[in-house]
Protein backbone atom coordinates (compact mmCIF):
# COMPACT_ATOMS: atom_id res chain seq x y z
CA UNK A 1 0.00 0.00 0.00
CA UNK A 2 2.78 2.37 0.93
CA UNK A 3 4.67 1.43 -2.20
CA UNK A 4 1.62 2.20 -4.31
CA UNK A 5 1.19 5.71 -2.97
CA UNK A 6 4.91 6.28 -3.40
CA UNK A 7 4.61 5.31 -7.05
CA UNK A 8 1.65 7.60 -7.51
CA UNK A 9 3.64 10.47 -6.15
CA UNK A 10 6.52 9.60 -8.47
CA UNK A 11 4.16 9.62 -11.47
CA UNK A 12 2.93 13.07 -10.52
CA UNK A 13 6.55 14.17 -10.38
CA UNK A 14 7.06 13.08 -13.99
CA UNK A 15 4.08 15.15 -15.12
CA UNK A 16 5.53 18.13 -13.28
CA UNK A 17 8.83 17.78 -15.13
CA UNK A 18 7.03 17.57 -18.46
CA UNK A 19 4.82 20.53 -17.64
CA UNK A 20 6.94 23.37 -19.14
CA UNK A 21 7.05 21.60 -22.53
CA UNK A 22 3.35 20.90 -22.29
CA UNK A 23 2.55 24.55 -21.60
CA UNK A 24 4.58 25.78 -24.58
CA UNK A 25 3.03 23.23 -26.94
CA UNK A 26 -0.48 24.06 -25.74
CA UNK A 27 0.07 27.81 -25.99
CA UNK A 28 1.94 28.05 -29.29
CA UNK A 29 0.70 25.05 -31.29
CA UNK A 30 -2.55 23.59 -29.99
CA UNK A 31 -4.21 26.89 -29.12
CA UNK A 32 -3.33 28.50 -32.50
CA UNK A 33 -4.59 25.41 -34.32
CA UNK A 34 -7.95 25.63 -32.54
CA UNK A 35 -8.02 29.41 -32.89
CA UNK A 36 -7.44 28.91 -36.60
CA UNK A 37 -10.68 26.89 -36.80
CA UNK A 38 -12.52 29.66 -34.95
CA UNK A 39 -11.05 32.36 -37.23
CA UNK A 40 -12.16 30.45 -40.30
CA UNK A 41 -15.79 31.02 -39.26
CA UNK A 42 -15.34 34.80 -39.00
CA UNK A 43 -14.72 37.65 -41.43
CA UNK A 44 -11.67 38.77 -39.47
CA UNK A 45 -9.33 41.06 -41.40
CA UNK A 46 -6.09 42.87 -40.67
CA UNK A 47 -7.41 46.24 -41.89
CA UNK A 48 -10.77 47.88 -42.55
CA UNK A 49 -14.09 47.59 -40.77
CA UNK A 50 -13.83 43.85 -40.18
CA UNK A 51 -10.59 44.39 -38.27
CA UNK A 52 -12.41 46.50 -35.67
CA UNK A 53 -15.52 44.39 -35.42
CA UNK A 54 -15.13 40.87 -36.78
CA UNK A 55 -18.37 38.95 -37.22
CA UNK A 56 -19.24 35.28 -37.14
CA UNK A 57 -20.08 34.30 -40.71
CA UNK A 58 -20.74 30.58 -40.39
CA UNK A 59 -19.57 28.50 -43.31
CA UNK A 60 -19.33 31.46 -45.67
CA UNK A 61 -15.52 31.24 -45.97
CA UNK A 62 -15.72 27.55 -46.78
CA UNK A 63 -18.45 28.14 -49.35
CA UNK A 64 -16.21 30.78 -50.90
CA UNK A 65 -13.36 28.27 -51.08
CA UNK A 66 -15.46 26.06 -53.34
CA UNK A 67 -15.83 28.79 -55.94
CA UNK A 68 -12.32 30.17 -55.58
CA UNK A 69 -10.31 29.19 -58.66
CA UNK A 70 -7.10 30.37 -56.97
CA UNK A 71 -7.71 28.00 -54.06
CA UNK A 72 -8.17 25.02 -56.37
CA UNK A 73 -5.11 26.15 -58.28
CA UNK A 74 -3.14 26.20 -55.00
CA UNK A 75 -4.32 22.67 -54.14
CA UNK A 76 -3.42 21.45 -57.63
CA UNK A 77 0.01 23.14 -57.60
CA UNK A 78 0.70 21.69 -54.14
CA UNK A 79 -0.32 18.23 -55.37
CA UNK A 80 1.99 18.42 -58.40
CA UNK A 81 4.76 19.86 -56.22
CA UNK A 82 4.50 17.01 -53.69
CA UNK A 83 4.25 14.27 -56.32
CA UNK A 84 7.02 15.75 -58.46
CA UNK A 85 9.58 16.59 -55.82
CA UNK A 86 8.91 14.24 -52.88
CA UNK A 87 7.25 11.16 -54.36
CA UNK A 88 9.29 11.05 -57.58
CA UNK A 89 12.35 13.33 -57.56
CA UNK A 90 13.76 12.91 -54.06
CA UNK A 91 12.70 9.28 -53.88
CA UNK A 92 14.31 8.18 -57.15
CA UNK A 93 17.57 10.08 -56.64
CA UNK A 94 17.66 9.14 -52.94
CA UNK A 95 17.15 5.45 -53.72
CA UNK A 96 19.79 5.47 -56.47
CA UNK A 97 22.25 7.18 -54.09
CA UNK A 98 21.45 4.79 -51.25
CA UNK A 99 21.91 1.73 -53.45
CA UNK A 100 25.11 3.01 -55.06
CA UNK A 101 26.58 3.90 -51.65
CA UNK A 102 26.02 0.31 -50.46
CA UNK A 103 28.69 -0.89 -52.85
CA UNK A 104 32.21 -0.97 -51.37
CA UNK A 105 33.50 1.73 -53.69
CA UNK A 106 35.99 4.50 -52.86
CA UNK A 107 35.07 8.10 -51.88
CA UNK A 108 31.81 6.91 -50.32
CA UNK A 109 32.06 9.41 -47.47
CA UNK A 110 32.86 12.23 -49.85
CA UNK A 111 29.91 11.41 -52.10
CA UNK A 112 27.46 11.17 -49.22
CA UNK A 113 28.77 14.43 -47.71
CA UNK A 114 28.18 16.27 -50.97
CA UNK A 115 24.68 14.80 -51.31
CA UNK A 116 23.90 15.89 -47.73
CA UNK A 117 25.06 19.47 -48.41
CA UNK A 118 21.83 20.88 -50.00
CA UNK A 119 19.87 19.82 -46.94
CA UNK A 120 22.09 22.04 -44.80
CA UNK A 121 21.44 25.16 -46.89
CA UNK A 122 18.90 27.47 -45.21
CA UNK A 123 15.78 27.98 -47.34
CA UNK A 124 16.59 31.54 -48.30
CA UNK A 125 20.16 30.74 -49.31
CA UNK A 126 18.95 27.75 -51.31
CA UNK A 127 16.50 30.07 -53.04
CA UNK A 128 19.21 32.57 -54.00
CA UNK A 129 21.60 29.89 -55.19
CA UNK A 130 18.95 28.63 -57.55
CA UNK A 131 17.97 32.09 -58.70
CA UNK A 132 21.59 32.37 -59.76
CA UNK A 133 21.27 29.02 -61.55
CA UNK A 134 17.99 29.79 -63.28
CA UNK A 135 17.32 33.52 -63.65
CA UNK A 136 18.82 35.89 -66.19
CA UNK A 137 17.91 34.21 -69.49
CA UNK A 138 20.95 33.59 -71.64
CA UNK A 139 23.28 34.58 -68.83
CA UNK A 140 21.82 32.22 -66.23
CA UNK A 141 24.29 29.62 -64.99
CA UNK A 142 22.09 26.77 -66.18
CA UNK A 143 21.68 28.35 -69.61
CA UNK A 144 25.45 28.53 -69.92
CA UNK A 145 25.88 24.92 -68.85
CA UNK A 146 23.23 23.45 -71.13
CA UNK A 147 24.17 25.87 -73.91
CA UNK A 148 27.51 24.06 -73.95
CA UNK A 149 25.59 20.92 -74.96
CA UNK A 150 23.59 22.77 -77.61
CA UNK A 151 20.37 23.25 -75.60
CA UNK A 152 18.54 26.54 -76.19
CA UNK A 153 18.91 28.86 -73.16
CA UNK A 154 15.74 30.07 -71.46
CA UNK A 155 14.43 32.14 -68.61
CA UNK A 156 13.82 28.96 -66.68
CA UNK A 157 11.81 30.35 -63.76
CA UNK A 158 9.50 32.17 -66.19
CA UNK A 159 9.06 29.38 -68.72
CA UNK A 160 8.97 26.31 -66.43
CA UNK A 161 8.15 27.77 -63.00
CA UNK A 162 6.50 24.73 -61.42
CA UNK A 163 9.06 22.29 -62.85
CA UNK A 164 11.86 24.46 -61.51
CA UNK A 165 10.59 24.61 -57.91
CA UNK A 166 10.17 20.83 -58.16
CA UNK A 167 13.82 20.52 -59.25
CA UNK A 168 14.99 22.78 -56.42
CA UNK A 169 12.97 20.97 -53.76
CA UNK A 170 14.19 17.64 -55.13
CA UNK A 171 17.75 18.93 -54.82
CA UNK A 172 17.10 19.93 -51.22
CA UNK A 173 15.56 16.62 -50.14
CA UNK A 174 17.72 13.93 -51.75
CA UNK A 175 19.65 13.62 -48.49
CA UNK A 176 16.61 12.83 -46.35
CA UNK A 177 15.42 10.20 -48.82
CA UNK A 178 18.92 8.74 -49.04
CA UNK A 179 19.30 8.44 -45.26
CA UNK A 180 15.87 6.89 -44.73
CA UNK A 181 16.20 4.47 -47.62
CA UNK A 182 19.74 3.49 -46.57
CA UNK A 183 18.30 2.56 -43.19
CA UNK A 184 15.59 0.53 -44.92
CA UNK A 185 18.06 -1.21 -47.23
CA UNK A 186 20.26 -2.21 -44.32
CA UNK A 187 17.41 -4.22 -42.79
CA UNK A 188 17.27 -6.59 -45.79
CA UNK A 189 19.36 -9.69 -44.92
CA UNK A 190 22.33 -10.26 -47.25
CA UNK A 191 21.53 -13.99 -47.48
CA UNK A 192 18.43 -13.25 -49.55
CA UNK A 193 20.56 -11.51 -52.19
CA UNK A 194 23.06 -14.34 -51.97
CA UNK A 195 20.30 -16.89 -52.64
CA UNK A 196 18.93 -14.85 -55.54
CA UNK A 197 22.38 -14.65 -57.08
CA UNK A 198 22.74 -18.46 -56.75
CA UNK A 199 19.46 -18.86 -58.61
CA UNK A 200 20.83 -16.68 -61.38
CA UNK A 201 18.53 -13.68 -60.92
CA UNK A 202 19.40 -10.60 -62.98
CA UNK A 203 19.95 -7.30 -61.13
CA UNK A 204 16.62 -5.92 -62.33
CA UNK A 205 14.82 -9.08 -61.20
CA UNK A 206 16.54 -8.85 -57.82
CA UNK A 207 15.49 -5.20 -57.52
CA UNK A 208 11.85 -5.83 -58.47
CA UNK A 209 11.33 -9.11 -56.60
CA UNK A 210 13.44 -8.56 -53.47
CA UNK A 211 14.54 -4.98 -52.85
CA UNK A 212 11.28 -3.20 -53.66
CA UNK A 213 8.86 -5.54 -51.85
CA UNK A 214 11.04 -5.76 -48.74
CA UNK A 215 11.53 -1.99 -48.76
CA UNK A 216 7.78 -1.28 -48.97
CA UNK A 217 7.28 -0.39 -45.27
CA UNK A 218 10.23 2.02 -45.41
CA UNK A 219 9.06 3.48 -48.71
CA UNK A 220 5.58 4.05 -47.32
CA UNK A 221 6.99 5.83 -44.26
CA UNK A 222 9.28 7.91 -46.45
CA UNK A 223 6.40 8.91 -48.74
CA UNK A 224 4.29 10.07 -45.80
CA UNK A 225 7.12 11.98 -44.10
CA UNK A 226 8.20 13.70 -47.30
CA UNK A 227 4.64 14.54 -48.38
CA UNK A 228 3.96 16.15 -45.00
CA UNK A 229 7.19 18.15 -45.04
CA UNK A 230 6.72 19.22 -48.66
CA UNK A 231 3.23 20.58 -47.96
CA UNK A 232 4.84 22.76 -45.28
CA UNK A 233 7.53 24.21 -47.61
CA UNK A 234 7.26 28.00 -47.61
CA UNK A 235 10.60 29.85 -47.57
CA UNK A 236 12.08 28.05 -50.54
CA UNK A 237 9.20 28.84 -52.89
CA UNK A 238 8.79 32.33 -51.43
CA UNK A 239 12.44 33.16 -52.08
CA UNK A 240 12.36 31.69 -55.59
CA UNK A 241 9.07 32.89 -57.09
CA UNK A 242 6.77 34.14 -54.31
CA UNK A 243 4.06 32.05 -55.95
CA UNK A 244 4.37 33.58 -59.40
CA UNK A 245 4.35 34.01 -62.29
CA UNK A 246 0.57 34.30 -62.26
CA UNK A 247 0.02 31.78 -59.47
CA UNK A 248 1.95 29.04 -61.32
CA UNK A 249 3.90 28.17 -58.16
CA UNK A 250 1.36 29.29 -55.59
CA UNK A 251 1.48 26.27 -53.27
CA UNK A 252 -0.99 26.20 -50.42
CA UNK A 253 1.38 27.67 -47.82
CA UNK A 254 2.09 30.62 -50.12
CA UNK A 255 -1.64 31.05 -50.74
CA UNK A 256 -2.34 31.14 -46.99
CA UNK A 257 0.39 33.73 -46.53
CA UNK A 258 -0.87 35.87 -49.43
CA UNK A 259 -4.49 35.76 -48.28
CA UNK A 260 -3.56 36.63 -44.69
CA UNK A 261 -0.68 39.08 -45.02
CA UNK A 262 -1.04 40.53 -48.52
CA UNK A 263 -4.83 40.60 -48.91
CA UNK A 264 -5.28 40.87 -45.11
CA UNK A 265 -8.24 38.43 -45.18
CA UNK A 266 -7.44 36.61 -41.94
CA UNK A 267 -10.76 34.76 -41.70
CA UNK A 268 -10.57 33.50 -45.25
CA UNK A 269 -6.86 32.72 -44.91
CA UNK A 270 -7.71 30.70 -41.81
CA UNK A 271 -10.22 28.62 -43.80
CA UNK A 272 -7.45 27.75 -46.27
CA UNK A 273 -5.16 27.03 -43.32
CA UNK A 274 -7.73 24.64 -41.83
CA UNK A 275 -7.82 22.72 -45.14
CA UNK A 276 -4.00 22.46 -45.04
CA UNK A 277 -4.13 21.38 -41.38
CA UNK A 278 -6.68 18.67 -42.13
CA UNK A 279 -4.73 17.28 -45.10
CA UNK A 280 -1.50 17.24 -43.04
CA UNK A 281 -3.25 15.61 -40.08
CA UNK A 282 -4.68 12.84 -42.26
CA UNK A 283 -1.22 12.12 -43.68
CA UNK A 284 0.22 12.37 -40.17
CA UNK A 285 -2.23 9.86 -38.72
CA UNK A 286 -1.42 7.50 -41.59
CA UNK A 287 2.27 7.99 -40.77
CA UNK A 288 1.80 7.25 -37.07
CA UNK A 289 -0.22 4.13 -37.90
CA UNK A 290 2.31 2.92 -40.46
CA UNK A 291 5.17 3.50 -38.04
CA UNK A 292 3.62 1.34 -35.29
CA UNK A 293 5.54 3.42 -32.78
CA UNK A 294 7.36 1.51 -30.09
CA UNK A 295 6.74 3.28 -26.84
Amino acid at each position, binding site marked *: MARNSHEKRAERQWLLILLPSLVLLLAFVIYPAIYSIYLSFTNEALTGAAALRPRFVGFRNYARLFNDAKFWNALFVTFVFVIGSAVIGQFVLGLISA*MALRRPIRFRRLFSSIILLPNAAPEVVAGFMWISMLAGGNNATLSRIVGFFGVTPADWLQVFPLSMIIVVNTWRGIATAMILLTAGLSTIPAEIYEAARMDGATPSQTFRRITLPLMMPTILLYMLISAVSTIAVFGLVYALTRGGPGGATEVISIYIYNQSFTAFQLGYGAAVAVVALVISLILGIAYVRAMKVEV
Partner: protein
Amino acid sequence: MAVVSPSESANKGRSDLIAYATLSLISIFCAVPFFWVLLASFDGNSQLFLHWPEQWTFANYVRVFTKEDGAKWLFNSLFVVGSATLLVMVLAGLGGYALSRTRAWWKLPFLYAILLIRVLPPTALVVPLYKFLLTLNNAEAAVLRPIFGSYARDIMRWTGFIDGYLGLILVLATMQLPLALWIMKTFFDGLPRDYEEAALMDGATLIQRIRRVLIPLALPGLAAAGLFAFMSAWGDFLLPLIFLSSPELQTLPLGLFRAFLRINEIDYGLLTALAFIYLLPAVVAFGFARRFLVQTFSGGVKG
Protein backbone atom coordinates in the same frame (compact mmCIF):
# COMPACT_ATOMS: atom_id res chain seq x y z
CA MET B 1 33.46 -20.40 -51.38
CA ALA B 2 35.29 -17.22 -52.16
CA VAL B 3 36.02 -18.22 -55.71
CA VAL B 4 34.79 -15.54 -58.08
CA SER B 5 34.34 -16.43 -61.70
CA PRO B 6 35.87 -14.05 -64.26
CA SER B 7 32.49 -13.06 -65.66
CA GLU B 8 31.21 -12.33 -62.18
CA SER B 9 34.11 -10.04 -61.31
CA ALA B 10 33.67 -8.24 -64.63
CA ASN B 11 30.03 -7.82 -63.72
CA LYS B 12 31.01 -6.42 -60.35
CA GLY B 13 33.44 -3.99 -61.97
CA ARG B 14 30.72 -2.76 -64.27
CA SER B 15 28.28 -2.28 -61.38
CA ASP B 16 30.91 -0.27 -59.50
CA LEU B 17 31.43 1.87 -62.57
CA ILE B 18 27.69 2.54 -62.75
CA ALA B 19 27.73 3.43 -59.06
CA TYR B 20 30.61 5.89 -59.57
CA ALA B 21 28.92 7.47 -62.57
CA THR B 22 25.51 7.97 -60.93
CA LEU B 23 27.02 9.21 -57.67
CA SER B 24 29.20 11.68 -59.57
CA LEU B 25 26.25 13.04 -61.51
CA ILE B 26 24.09 13.41 -58.40
CA SER B 27 27.00 15.02 -56.54
CA ILE B 28 27.51 17.57 -59.31
CA PHE B 29 23.77 18.38 -59.22
CA CYS B 30 24.03 18.84 -55.44
CA ALA B 31 27.25 20.86 -55.40
CA VAL B 32 27.09 23.27 -58.35
CA PRO B 33 24.62 25.78 -56.83
CA PHE B 34 27.02 26.25 -53.90
CA PHE B 35 29.84 27.43 -56.16
CA TRP B 36 28.11 30.71 -56.93
CA VAL B 37 27.87 31.74 -53.27
CA LEU B 38 31.45 30.68 -52.65
CA LEU B 39 33.06 32.30 -55.71
CA ALA B 40 30.94 35.45 -55.95
CA SER B 41 31.56 36.28 -52.29
CA PHE B 42 35.31 36.57 -52.98
CA ASP B 43 34.81 38.32 -56.30
CA GLY B 44 35.52 42.01 -56.80
CA ASN B 45 33.00 42.05 -59.64
CA SER B 46 30.24 39.66 -58.58
CA GLN B 47 27.41 38.82 -60.95
CA LEU B 48 24.17 36.91 -60.67
CA PHE B 49 25.61 34.06 -62.71
CA LEU B 50 28.48 31.78 -61.88
CA HIS B 51 31.87 32.87 -63.16
CA TRP B 52 35.50 32.61 -62.10
CA PRO B 53 36.60 35.78 -60.23
CA GLU B 54 39.21 37.87 -62.01
CA GLN B 55 40.15 39.70 -58.87
CA TRP B 56 39.92 37.89 -55.55
CA THR B 57 39.02 40.02 -52.58
CA PHE B 58 37.81 39.98 -48.98
CA ALA B 59 36.18 43.38 -49.45
CA ASN B 60 32.66 41.90 -49.58
CA TYR B 61 33.10 40.34 -46.15
CA VAL B 62 34.59 43.52 -44.74
CA ARG B 63 31.64 45.50 -46.07
CA VAL B 64 29.14 43.08 -44.50
CA PHE B 65 30.50 43.96 -41.08
CA THR B 66 31.40 47.62 -41.55
CA LYS B 67 29.05 49.30 -44.01
CA GLU B 68 26.02 47.07 -43.71
CA ASP B 69 24.14 45.69 -40.73
CA GLY B 70 25.66 42.24 -41.14
CA ALA B 71 27.11 42.14 -37.63
CA LYS B 72 23.76 43.11 -36.15
CA TRP B 73 21.88 40.48 -38.16
CA LEU B 74 24.42 37.84 -37.21
CA PHE B 75 24.12 38.76 -33.54
CA ASN B 76 20.32 38.68 -33.68
CA SER B 77 20.30 35.28 -35.36
CA LEU B 78 22.86 33.81 -32.99
CA PHE B 79 21.09 35.23 -29.95
CA VAL B 80 17.58 34.18 -30.93
CA VAL B 81 18.45 30.75 -32.32
CA GLY B 82 21.01 30.09 -29.56
CA SER B 83 18.50 30.91 -26.82
CA ALA B 84 15.81 28.82 -28.49
CA THR B 85 18.22 25.88 -28.80
CA LEU B 86 19.24 26.10 -25.12
CA LEU B 87 15.60 26.27 -24.09
CA VAL B 88 14.79 23.23 -26.23
CA MET B 89 17.68 21.28 -24.73
CA VAL B 90 16.59 22.01 -21.15
CA LEU B 91 12.90 21.31 -21.76
CA ALA B 92 13.46 18.22 -23.92
CA GLY B 93 16.05 16.89 -21.50
CA LEU B 94 13.60 17.09 -18.61
CA GLY B 95 10.54 16.10 -20.62
CA GLY B 96 12.26 13.27 -22.45
CA TYR B 97 13.43 11.84 -19.14
CA ALA B 98 9.91 11.97 -17.75
CA LEU B 99 8.52 10.36 -20.90
CA SER B 100 11.07 7.59 -20.74
CA ARG B 101 10.60 6.72 -17.06
CA THR B 102 6.92 7.24 -16.43
CA ARG B 103 4.31 4.52 -16.76
CA ALA B 104 1.33 6.86 -16.48
CA TRP B 105 -1.68 6.56 -18.78
CA TRP B 106 -0.93 9.87 -20.50
CA LYS B 107 2.42 8.73 -21.85
CA LEU B 108 1.20 7.02 -25.01
CA PRO B 109 -1.38 9.65 -26.02
CA PHE B 110 1.17 12.38 -25.42
CA LEU B 111 3.83 10.73 -27.57
CA TYR B 112 1.36 10.22 -30.43
CA ALA B 113 0.11 13.78 -30.03
CA ILE B 114 3.54 15.35 -30.38
CA LEU B 115 4.20 13.26 -33.49
CA LEU B 116 1.05 14.76 -34.99
CA ILE B 117 1.97 18.26 -33.81
CA ARG B 118 5.17 17.98 -35.80
CA VAL B 119 3.11 17.36 -38.91
CA LEU B 120 1.19 20.66 -38.78
CA PRO B 121 2.45 23.16 -41.38
CA PRO B 122 3.75 26.33 -39.63
CA THR B 123 2.20 28.55 -42.33
CA ALA B 124 -1.22 27.32 -41.23
CA LEU B 125 -0.51 28.35 -37.64
CA VAL B 126 1.13 31.76 -38.02
CA VAL B 127 -2.01 33.89 -38.35
CA PRO B 128 -3.64 32.76 -35.09
CA LEU B 129 -0.18 32.69 -33.52
CA TYR B 130 0.37 36.29 -34.59
CA LYS B 131 -2.97 37.36 -33.11
CA PHE B 132 -2.25 35.50 -29.87
CA LEU B 133 1.23 36.99 -29.53
CA LEU B 134 -0.19 40.43 -30.26
CA THR B 135 -2.65 40.01 -27.38
CA LEU B 136 0.15 38.91 -25.03
CA ASN B 137 2.27 41.80 -26.26
CA ASN B 138 -0.42 44.40 -25.60
CA ALA B 139 -1.06 42.96 -22.16
CA GLU B 140 2.65 43.11 -21.37
CA ALA B 141 2.92 46.68 -22.63
CA ALA B 142 -0.10 47.70 -20.54
CA VAL B 143 1.67 46.41 -17.43
CA LEU B 144 5.15 47.72 -18.25
CA ARG B 145 4.25 51.24 -19.44
CA PRO B 146 2.88 52.63 -16.17
CA ILE B 147 5.80 51.15 -14.25
CA PHE B 148 8.76 51.90 -16.50
CA GLY B 149 7.42 54.80 -18.56
CA SER B 150 9.59 55.57 -21.53
CA TYR B 151 11.97 52.71 -20.67
CA ALA B 152 9.19 50.21 -21.36
CA ARG B 153 10.02 50.25 -25.06
CA ASP B 154 13.62 49.21 -24.43
CA ILE B 155 12.48 46.42 -22.15
CA MET B 156 9.93 45.28 -24.70
CA ARG B 157 12.62 44.88 -27.33
CA TRP B 158 13.98 42.00 -25.26
CA THR B 159 10.80 40.67 -23.68
CA GLY B 160 8.18 41.55 -26.29
CA PHE B 161 6.13 38.86 -27.98
CA ILE B 162 5.77 40.73 -31.27
CA ASP B 163 8.80 42.60 -32.51
CA GLY B 164 10.83 41.46 -29.51
CA TYR B 165 13.30 38.66 -28.94
CA LEU B 166 11.25 36.72 -26.40
CA GLY B 167 8.27 35.88 -28.62
CA LEU B 168 10.41 34.61 -31.46
CA ILE B 169 12.59 32.57 -29.09
CA LEU B 170 9.56 30.91 -27.48
CA VAL B 171 7.85 30.10 -30.77
CA LEU B 172 11.04 28.83 -32.44
CA ALA B 173 11.72 26.62 -29.41
CA THR B 174 8.17 25.26 -29.36
CA MET B 175 8.36 24.29 -33.03
CA GLN B 176 11.51 22.25 -32.32
CA LEU B 177 10.20 20.66 -29.12
CA PRO B 178 8.33 17.62 -30.49
CA LEU B 179 11.32 16.17 -32.32
CA ALA B 180 13.66 17.00 -29.43
CA LEU B 181 11.33 15.32 -26.92
CA TRP B 182 11.27 12.19 -29.08
CA ILE B 183 15.04 12.17 -29.43
CA MET B 184 15.54 12.53 -25.68
CA LYS B 185 12.85 9.98 -24.81
CA THR B 186 14.46 7.41 -27.14
CA PHE B 187 17.87 8.29 -25.76
CA PHE B 188 16.86 7.78 -22.11
CA ASP B 189 15.14 4.52 -23.06
CA GLY B 190 18.55 3.23 -24.07
CA LEU B 191 20.17 4.38 -20.84
CA PRO B 192 20.35 1.74 -18.05
CA ARG B 193 18.51 2.64 -14.88
CA ASP B 194 21.20 1.16 -12.63
CA TYR B 195 22.96 4.46 -12.01
CA GLU B 196 19.80 6.27 -11.04
CA GLU B 197 18.71 3.44 -8.80
CA ALA B 198 22.08 3.42 -7.10
CA ALA B 199 21.76 7.15 -6.55
CA LEU B 200 18.24 6.64 -5.27
CA MET B 201 19.52 4.09 -2.74
CA ASP B 202 22.00 6.67 -1.51
CA GLY B 203 19.03 8.88 -0.75
CA ALA B 204 19.62 11.42 -3.49
CA THR B 205 16.68 13.64 -4.38
CA LEU B 206 15.29 13.83 -7.90
CA ILE B 207 17.11 17.09 -8.55
CA GLN B 208 20.39 15.64 -7.30
CA ARG B 209 19.95 12.55 -9.43
CA ILE B 210 19.31 14.68 -12.48
CA ARG B 211 22.27 16.97 -11.88
CA ARG B 212 24.95 14.50 -10.80
CA VAL B 213 23.99 11.37 -12.69
CA LEU B 214 21.67 12.04 -15.59
CA ILE B 215 23.03 15.21 -17.15
CA PRO B 216 26.53 13.78 -17.62
CA LEU B 217 25.06 10.59 -19.10
CA ALA B 218 22.56 12.48 -21.26
CA LEU B 219 25.05 14.82 -22.93
CA PRO B 220 25.26 12.93 -26.27
CA GLY B 221 21.47 12.88 -26.55
CA LEU B 222 21.24 16.55 -25.59
CA ALA B 223 23.85 17.34 -28.21
CA ALA B 224 21.79 15.58 -30.87
CA ALA B 225 18.55 17.27 -29.83
CA GLY B 226 20.33 20.64 -29.69
CA LEU B 227 21.90 20.23 -33.13
CA PHE B 228 18.58 19.39 -34.76
CA ALA B 229 16.88 22.29 -33.02
CA PHE B 230 19.67 24.66 -34.01
CA MET B 231 19.68 23.55 -37.65
CA SER B 232 16.01 24.02 -38.31
CA ALA B 233 15.62 27.17 -36.22
CA TRP B 234 18.67 28.68 -37.94
CA GLY B 235 17.18 28.03 -41.35
CA ASP B 236 13.70 29.25 -40.48
CA PHE B 237 12.50 32.21 -42.47
CA LEU B 238 8.74 32.32 -41.92
CA LEU B 239 8.62 33.10 -38.19
CA PRO B 240 11.02 36.08 -38.16
CA LEU B 241 9.32 37.33 -41.34
CA ILE B 242 6.00 37.55 -39.52
CA PHE B 243 6.96 38.36 -35.91
CA LEU B 244 9.69 40.96 -36.47
CA SER B 245 9.40 44.32 -38.14
CA SER B 246 11.94 46.64 -36.47
CA PRO B 247 15.14 46.94 -38.53
CA GLU B 248 17.30 46.56 -35.42
CA LEU B 249 15.80 43.14 -34.66
CA GLN B 250 16.18 41.59 -38.13
CA THR B 251 17.80 38.18 -38.32
CA LEU B 252 20.15 36.95 -41.06
CA PRO B 253 17.54 35.34 -43.35
CA LEU B 254 15.49 38.55 -43.26
CA GLY B 255 18.48 40.81 -43.85
CA LEU B 256 19.49 38.59 -46.72
CA PHE B 257 16.03 38.62 -48.19
CA ARG B 258 15.70 42.40 -47.93
CA ALA B 259 19.15 42.83 -49.50
CA PHE B 260 17.93 40.77 -52.42
CA LEU B 261 14.81 42.88 -52.83
CA ARG B 262 16.69 46.07 -53.78
CA ILE B 263 15.72 45.26 -57.32
CA ASN B 264 17.83 47.75 -59.28
CA GLU B 265 20.95 47.73 -57.22
CA ILE B 266 21.48 44.24 -55.90
CA ASP B 267 25.01 44.05 -54.58
CA TYR B 268 25.84 40.43 -55.34
CA GLY B 269 29.20 40.54 -53.60
CA LEU B 270 27.57 41.66 -50.38
CA LEU B 271 24.65 39.29 -50.81
CA THR B 272 26.82 36.22 -51.35
CA ALA B 273 29.19 37.13 -48.53
CA LEU B 274 26.19 37.41 -46.23
CA ALA B 275 24.79 34.13 -47.58
CA PHE B 276 28.11 32.39 -46.97
CA ILE B 277 28.22 33.65 -43.37
CA TYR B 278 24.65 32.39 -42.92
CA LEU B 279 25.47 29.07 -44.56
CA LEU B 280 28.55 28.26 -42.53
CA PRO B 281 27.03 27.46 -39.09
CA ALA B 282 24.35 25.38 -40.82
CA VAL B 283 26.91 23.28 -42.67
CA VAL B 284 29.09 22.88 -39.57
CA ALA B 285 26.09 21.81 -37.48
CA PHE B 286 25.09 19.42 -40.23
CA GLY B 287 28.56 17.91 -40.24
CA PHE B 288 28.28 17.21 -36.51
CA ALA B 289 24.70 16.01 -36.79
CA ARG B 290 25.49 13.51 -39.55
CA ARG B 291 26.09 10.66 -37.15
CA PHE B 292 22.92 11.37 -35.15
CA LEU B 293 20.99 11.93 -38.34
CA VAL B 294 21.52 8.39 -39.55
CA GLN B 295 20.77 6.97 -36.10
CA THR B 296 17.62 9.03 -35.65
CA PHE B 297 16.18 8.17 -39.02
CA SER B 298 17.04 4.49 -38.81
CA GLY B 299 15.59 4.44 -35.30
CA GLY B 300 12.38 5.88 -36.68
CA VAL B 301 12.20 3.32 -39.44
CA LYS B 302 12.92 0.34 -37.26
CA GLY B 303 9.57 0.56 -35.39
